[in-house]
């Protein structure tokens, strides 16, 4: 079944106001273009699940798409603070943000339980942490094998998961390499799943290396070609991270009005990701170019 579609169509079909949506990608393969399309379509009341926050969290907050956040790291990586997020958390400005906080290990466990249709997942690291005291969703169970009680975190099953990858075939078999984050688990945990990719490739390429597939087609609802869809994050083998963009954001976002202006110009006034990229300028990706380094082929040969 051909599941390719446009980003606008995919988001419009599979996302609804009030949904919990997971956008995963750990500093690499981040579904930025998809986040922008969510802003463009003016969704509201969403709860975002995202382990490690970044510019898109500030942008979704600035666009008033989010009422809640489920996360374990709320800075802009090494680039500084996320000021929209801080205004919401520190001053309820312009309104409070429901923040369901874990550690990375806790988020990994929540996605795993969600993907596995288990009610919860045990985790060994929370004894003595104020996080386990403050967050009422971190609970404990007794150990029937005689050890001390152990903490458990609840399953996370987003209404929609969106991930970005290097490539997929038209059916939605998705391949990615480099740092993989929690994308496979987030994908299986989601009730619906959209995958954006740098390129749609012929299935013969996917099928020449089946161990490279991180998400099998049968759980994918829509697959969308969105070249440069992870900028300002990197895509291994395609383009480098744009640290300047991320640093500039942390400066710009100190001013709420500047965030509004940026969103108007860059998202609302552009029709799609291609127009967004055009604003960056034709040569913007020149300095983000990468040096090729190809894998040694392996032999999948069998009887035949």
């Amino acid at each position, binding site marked *: 079944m051909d599941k390719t579609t446009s980003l606008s169509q995919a988001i419009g079909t599979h996302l609804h106001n009030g949904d919990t949506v997971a956008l995963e990608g*750990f*500093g*690499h393969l981040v579904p930025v273009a998809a986040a922008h399309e969510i802003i463009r379509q003016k969704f509201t009341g969403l709860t975002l699940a995202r382990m*490690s926050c970044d510019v898109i969290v500030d942008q979704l907050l600035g666009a008033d798409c989010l009422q809640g956040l489920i*996360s*374990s*790291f*709320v*800075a802009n*990586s*090494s680039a500084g603070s996320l000021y929209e*997020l*801080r205004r919401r*958390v*520190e001053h*309820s400005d312009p309104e409070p943000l429901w*923040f369901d*906080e*874990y*550690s*990375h*290990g*806790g988020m*990994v*466990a929540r996605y*795993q339980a969600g993907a596995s249709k288990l009610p919860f997942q045990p*985790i*060994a*690291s*929370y*004894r*003595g*942490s*104020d*996080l*386990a005291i*403050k967050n009422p969703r971190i609970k*404990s169970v007794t150990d029937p094998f005689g*050890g*001390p*009680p*152990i*903490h458990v975190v609840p399953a996370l099953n987003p209404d929609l998961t969106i991930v970005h990858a290097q490539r997929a075939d038209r059916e939605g078999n998705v391949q990615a*390499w*480099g*740092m*993989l*984050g*929690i994308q*496979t*688990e987030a994908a299986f945990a989601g009730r619906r799943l959209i995958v954006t990719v740098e390129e749609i490739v012929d299935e013969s390429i996917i099928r020449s290396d089946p161990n490279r597939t991180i998400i099998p087609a049968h759980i994918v609802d829509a697959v969308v070609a969105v070249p440069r869809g992870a900028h300002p994050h*990197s*895509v*291994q083998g395609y383009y*480098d*991270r744009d*640290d300047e963009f991320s640093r500039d954001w942390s400066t710009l976002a100190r001013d709420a009005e500047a965030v509004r202006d940026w969103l108007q110009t860059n998202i609302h006034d552009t029709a799609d990701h291609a127009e967004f990229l055009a604003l960056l300028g034709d040569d913007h990706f020149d300095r983000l170019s990468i040096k090729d*380094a190809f894998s040694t082929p392996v032999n999948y040969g069998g009887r035949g």
Partner: protein
Amino acid sequence: MNIGTDITSSELLTIHSARALAGRRVVFAGHGLPTLAIALAQHTVAPEIEIVYESGVTGARPPDLPRSISDSVLVPGAASVMPMTHLFNYVLQGQRVDVGFLGAAQVDRYGSLNSTLIGDDWEHPESRLPGSGGAIEAMAGAAEVFLVMRRHTPRTFVETLDFVTSPSPRQAAQAEVGSMPAGAGVTHVITDLGIMTRSARDEELTLTAVHPGIDPAEVVRQTGWDLKVAADLESTRPPTPEELSLLRETLDPSRVYLR
């Protein structure tokens, strides 16, 4: 050149952090200076170190210093890139790490860390910090934790944390629920003033060395609790020209971390 006067605090911290890694093998690198310190250790006291990054990369040999733990420059030529489930479940929780190398906003006398907030209300903090990331898991799963703190002040070395993000084993023992941490917690704290160490669960951090020219009384003043000072307090050995040259010319020539 007189290397004693033009050494930055970052260089000093990095060099002493690197030295502390002698003999260690599997090291988990948090955000920031730890990455640079481990690179220096690999070039000097601990060539066998295998760095493990939160992003799942092991055995990285980046041509450039990575700008963060998720910089894709870490990947080409690395020995492995693990899925995050393996990194958090099997490597960190699986107790495969010898040293977790962390930073924090606040530390207390037993080595509990705060990287979550400043203020007294989790829901409405005065200042919201990044949060745990993988720090809670590194503290709970690593055999020991090294802490690097850029500024040793009473606001960072505190009697009571505003929020216990990553608990010391002593703090964990006082809780009623959950698995006890696998390791010793924070065993080394490297700051711009000196070095503190501890080992047993109920042992406090003790000032065991000060940097040349630092008065131990000043370190005590800059600490928010009555800091113990070792009877045999030492003065740290100054950075060597080799260490400085490696740092400045080979490892971080564009001063990503050496600000």
